[in-house]
């Protein structure tokens, strides 16, 4: 079971709710993904409440746990204020903390992230910090009190998968008691399987499903990949070898050492 701040989940997928062709497709994709946690954002309401309600009603019908984000925040102050609004709006201590440092790469400002994390933890939040593969930063987040850390696989929306595999493997080995989630950059179900094979606890993705040719079908593909990846991790994979090793026993091979007819 996946454990996040004391709550247990059977699905290891956290799925985003943005960029689907329609709300209906989003709803069906989330259902088909088996995800028990969805990410949502907090945005200014300028339409008098008509638009927000439609979206929120669909989320409520899905009967899933909501993880609000601070997407689009470039400062500690904005991220903390957004988190406080999210807590009031969704009545949850959970916050996916994003403090972005660079507009082009959407790379997290890890220093600001750590600073905002400390403020939010002190206020009773359960912080899911979006960070990079940097082990020192991850350790500082854990030292601050995070039970969950969410390093990127690659840049948000890039679909490139796990770019810094060695660093992320090291992070997994160094933080055994922490729930680690690969957040961002996954594109194919095989990327998600890989993350779980590496011992990561879960993945968080959005565009890989929403931006696929058939989000409802792709959602299922990710669910299956995650199941396979986790089973492989639990089973324990063979160690790679440098040279071949015959899988079929050599003893008793017909015609071994027999004279050739011509």
């Amino acid at each position, binding site marked *: 079971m996946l454990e996040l701040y004391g709550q247990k989940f059977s699905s290891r997928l956290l799925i985003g709710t943005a960029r689907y062709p329609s709300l209906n497709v*989003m709803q069906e994709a989330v259902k088909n993904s088996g995800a028990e946690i969805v990410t949502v954002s907090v945005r200014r*309401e300028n339409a008098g409440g008509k638009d*927000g309600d439609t*979206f*929120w009603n669909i989320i409520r019908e899905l009967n899933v746990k909501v993880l*609000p984000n601070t997407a689009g925040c470039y400062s500690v102050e904005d991220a903390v204020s957004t988190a406080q609004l*999210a807590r*009031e709006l969704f009545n949850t201590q959970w916050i996916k903390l994003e403090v972005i440092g660079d507009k082009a790469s959407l790379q997290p400002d890890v220093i600001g992230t750590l600073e905002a994390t400390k403020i939010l933890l002190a206020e009773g939040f359960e912080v899911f910090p979006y960070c990079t593969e940097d082990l020192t930063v991850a350790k500082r987040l854990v030292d601050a009190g995070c039970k969950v850390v969410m390093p990127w696989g690659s840049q948000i929306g890039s679909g490139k998968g796990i770019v810094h595999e060695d660093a992320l493997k090291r992070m997994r080995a160094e933080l055994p008691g922490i729930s680690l989630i690969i957040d961002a950059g996954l594109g194919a179900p095989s990327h998600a399987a890989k993350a779980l094979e590496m011992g990561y606890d879960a993945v968080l993705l959005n565009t890989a499903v929403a931006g696929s040719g058939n989000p409802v079908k792709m959602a299922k593909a990710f669910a299956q990949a995650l199941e396979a990846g986790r089973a492989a991790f639990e089973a324990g994979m063979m160690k790679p070898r440098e040279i071949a090793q015959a899988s079929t026993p050599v003893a008793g091979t017909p015609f071994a050492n027999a004279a050739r007819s011509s």
Partner: protein
Amino acid sequence: MQKTAVQEKAAITLTINGERKELRASSPRALLAELEFEGEFFAIAINRRVVPKARWNEDVLRDGDHVEIVTSRQGG
């Protein structure tokens, strides 16, 4: 009944979601009514301080206040 209270008050300048407006509302709830917002699924902050829903009738809006009214949207 909020409306009556609203009409008796002089206009104040509020910045609502980044936009300056002349309004008469004296509380967050009166503000939602004056802006003709429907429903309840909002969170409100005055000058970055979140106002819990339980205090929407009580907290006082003052001239020059910056108000954020937010709701849930799609997110990754």
